[in-house]
């Protein structure tokens, strides 16, 4: 495992600026050479010497993906003491991801959290005194990755992956129990049955993979939540943002979670707008629903739009919400300024510590929406808010895992068609099972043995 070549996007992902895709490992240069050509269309990365930088293009087959600068650092004179290649592209989330995917499909493996640093240390590149920091990076990054991946996987997608995994392990357990106890459990006519199941699994995992490739899987953007007590105008704001001429609304039916979300692209910024307003219409909620909602999203949102009704004084409920969100990225919106406003702005300022924007708007009359958009964009450019980079990585990780599960299912079908014996099927089924497990952060451990014992009656 340790000798593999790893790759990752090593810059913060944003729409502007330069993006760097970094590779480290024995095959870094070989892999980069497969996708890079110089201005003259030559493939000659392998012939360049260490510590040089080259201008050219990244190709996906015949198609040019981006104009790039590629730097080469050969072992042991690099950050990790391995062969390192850095591809400087024009940035942009889409381009970075595309290049990373290309690198991965040409033989690199996605770096584990903190893996570059780990390699640098293990190869003696980082000072002894930094070891603690290195360990912290590894454990915190991997926690973050897991948290992100789970955060994005609530709801139906999680259930789907679980279902596919359950079906897979059931089949493995069936095969294995028949192998362990051939006199009690027979595999007669089993390949036909398995073909049917695997065809289904393959179809499902392929469609998940396709949607992940299109980026529909986990929407990439700033997770933005509108909070506020009932009747402050949250729905109106949502509608006005969605109805905005420049806004693009994507429908992600089938992959979204139970919460309704909308994807909105303002000039340069993508928002995942969490529309929880719908909940209220169907259920007779008590007054503190606003608090509950704020609680739920305060932890995970990148940006909170906190709405207040300017025509009413601050209530206890407003204050409760403020308590929950005051340390987050918040924009306070005083709504209904088209009417008589009585709310005390100073009072609000006192409640929040630190910097934050307070805007006066009228969602109903579309007043102040331009300013809101500008403020969000500024915050993004200044880096006050960023959709966490891990999310993009998570997305790639998931796509990678889905692809590998898909390949494994295809291998099972091949084995069946080639008339290989049943024990060969379980090898690839197990690979699919563990790939899918990576998506939901579950490893294999003793799952199989447990499944065998609970589902199948063994002899003696």
């Amino acid at each position, binding site marked *: *495992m340790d000798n593999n070549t790893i790759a990752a996007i090593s810059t913060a992902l944003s729409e502007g600026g330069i993006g760097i895709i970094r590779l480290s490992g024995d095959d870094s240069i070989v892999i980069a050479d497969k996708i890079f050509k110089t201005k003259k269309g030559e493939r000659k990365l392998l012939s360049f010497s260490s510590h040089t930088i080259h201008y050219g293009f990244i190709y996906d087959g015949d198609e040019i993906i981006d104009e790039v600068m590629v730097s080469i650092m050969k072992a042991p004179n690099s950050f990790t003491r391995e062969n390192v290649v850095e591809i400087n592209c024009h940035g942009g989330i889409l381009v970075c991801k595309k290049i990373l995917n290309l690198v991965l499909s040409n033989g690199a493996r996605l770096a584990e959290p903190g893996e570059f640093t780990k390699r640098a240390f293990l190869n003696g590149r980082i000072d002894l005194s930094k070891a603690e920091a290195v*360990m912290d990076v590894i454990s915190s990054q991997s926690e973050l990755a897991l948290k992100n991946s789970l955060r994005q996987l609530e709801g139906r997608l999680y259930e789907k992956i679980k279902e596919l995994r359950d079906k897979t392990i059931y089949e493995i357990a069936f095969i294995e129990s028949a192998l362990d106890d051939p006199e*009690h459990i027979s595999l007669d006519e089993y390949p036909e049955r398995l073909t049917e199941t695997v065809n289904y699994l393959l179809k499902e995992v392929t469609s998940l993979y396709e949607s992940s490739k299109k980026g529909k899987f986990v929407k990439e953007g700033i997770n933005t939540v509108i909070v506020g007590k009932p009747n402050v105008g949250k729905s109106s704001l949502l509608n006005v943002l969605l109805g905005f001429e420049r806004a693009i609304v994507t429908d992600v039916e089938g992959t979204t979670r139970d919460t309704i979300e909308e994807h909105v692209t303002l000039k340069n910024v993508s928002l995942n707008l969490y529309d929880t307003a719908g909940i209220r219409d169907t259920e007779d909620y008590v007054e503190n629903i606003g608090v509950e909602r704020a609680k739920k999203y305060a932890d995970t949102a990148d940006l909170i739009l906190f709405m207040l009704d300017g025509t009413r004084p601050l209530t206890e409920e407003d204050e409760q919400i403020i308590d929950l969100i005051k340390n987050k990225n918040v924009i306070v919106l005083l709504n209904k300024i088209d009417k008589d406003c009585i709310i005390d702005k100073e009072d609000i300022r006192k409640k929040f510590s630190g910097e934050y924007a307070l805007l006066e708007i009228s969602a109903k009359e579309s007043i102040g929406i331009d300013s809101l958009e500008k403020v969000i964009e500024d915050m993004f450019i200044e880096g006050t808010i960023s959709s966490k980079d891990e999310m993009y990585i998570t997305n790639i990780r998931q796509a990678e895992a889905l692809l590998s599960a898909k390949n494994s299912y295809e291998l099972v079908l091949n084995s069946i068609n080639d008339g290989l014996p049943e024990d060969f099927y379980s090898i690839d089924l197990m690979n699919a099972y563990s790939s899918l497990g990576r998506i939901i952060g579950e490893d294999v451990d003793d799952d199989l043995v447990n499944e065998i014992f609970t589902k199948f009656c063994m002899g003696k």
Partner: protein
Amino acid sequence: MSETFRNEWVENVDVCVVGAGHAGCEAALACARLGLETVVFTVSIDSIALMPCNPNIGGSSKGHLVREVDALGGEMGKNIDKTFIQSKMLNVSKGPAVHSLRAQADKADYSRSMRKILENQEHLTVKQAEICDVIIEDKTVKGVVTYTGTTYMCKAVILCTGTYLKARCLCGEAITYTGPSGLQAANNLSTHLIENGVKLRRFKTGTPARMDKRSIDFTKMEEQFGDERIVPFSYSTDPESIQKEQISCWLTYTNEETHKIIRANLDRSPIYAGIIEGTGPRYCPSIEDKVVKFAEKERHQVFIEPEGLYTNEMYVGGMSSSLPEDVQLKMYRTVPGLENCKIVRNAYAIEYDCLEPNQLLPSLELKEISGMFCAGQFNGSSGYEEAAAQGIIAGINASMKLLGREPVILDRSQAYIGVLIDDLVTKDNREPYRMMTSRAEYRLLLRQDNADLRLRKIGHEVGLVSDEDYEKTLEKERLIEEEVLRLKSTTVGASKNIQEFLEKFGSSPLKTGTSIAELLCRPELSYEALAEIDPERPFLPEAVIEQVCIHIKYEGYIERQKHQVEQFKKTEKKLIPEDIDYDDVLSLRLEARQKLKQFKPLNIGQASRISGVTPADVSVLLVYLEQQRLRKQHE
């Protein structure tokens, strides 16, 4: 401390083996054969290598273990080859990795034959005595004390107490404090082990009733024959010498009536009534368990198997139980063919003390008590073959220690034995552990057909395999290699007679020339069939041809696993120092830290297999170890 009665007599030996079951026999033989003065103790000389449960050796994955024990120079394979009454290769329609040999044994003959081997082994003494105490000074084992008070001073002890420690047998409301088959239990040793800091736990298992053959109506059952061509277990047994007439087994089924009786009497089952505290195995459930847990199944298979040639006792496979005698009679008599059955021995459940095996090193020596080795069911496994496998390893390693040599530790890529011991010492097993092929991640490489190629060398180095036997293995290796090479380099063209040959076997015609090896990969073409177009072929033994075919047909898969093994070996080589303080590794998650402290893995590979230790924890550990190494270097 509780006092043990001691008389004045003191014997001095090298190794004391406690118990003469399947683990104890292999352990004692290994030590004695390596020249160490060895005593093996048993509560009853008549119960050496006793088979108190099923009357067979081998079966899926267990057959692999027997072959491995044999390759290392053990006795089990040879002994069953001498005493079997039916033999069958299981899973022959499946891949070569899961073929598995199983033989029905004549139990009495098996036991007698093993006793003869033990009794005639140089440097080995068989002694009937219960061991009550183990003498331990400075965390080092010094000797054992018998119930009659004699002291045996020694340099190593191998505990193979099976199911005898504080054993309790249950048959409904009737409880006896005996070992298996009514044999004397060993009631004294547990206390002294606990006093010496050894952690014990309680497991249970069970066995079905034995019937009088004359009371069974076999016309209502399906006859189960052995294989026409018998394959021996041992690599040293000449296949021709064991072709003989075999005895049949019989198949019948339970039915709704059986299940009704069981359900109506569950309150009288000690397990369901909560009288049994031990943890039982899920893989060989009692018939009560089957009926409760698999309620949707209308019937369960019941195998009637002979216990030997000179007895009328028949084993009722598939119906182990701890229900009371009257319920047993009622229940068994609902089964077709058993309507008038007479029970010779009742079914019963047995509870016993055994070790929490995470206290063991992979050499099977206790981490905290130098010279104390443990093997078999005492380590929380189940099965004769699992016991024998641990027995030979414990025997070898006790000897290696006394001879000042390195222990033999087989890893997961070398042998099922390696998987078995690694699982026992690094996993949190909550029930008696049974070997299964699915537990071996490299099973394509760990086949029962190549155990000699994998392990003979180690057995020879240890000193348990003779030069002559080892030469045979080397010769086999050479022949395999040559023939694989020859088949790969011998090509045939797309000529008329070749195309006709292919057509005859329903194989697609050739477009260009190809090697015989490539043709062999086609499922419809066997090695035998290809003889017609392969005139230069040398004469080769069956066993060599088998290896050649497997090698060529499954090359892709085998190569893939070999690659995985290379990766695996790397992590196994990264050692974790014994004195590591996990509290010093701050970035480890709490759960991981607790698990690592509990299991004390010897290397990074082991650490990564502990459940609750994530890849990130392993990375953190790697960085920590490197940091420590650098620090030492600086000092």
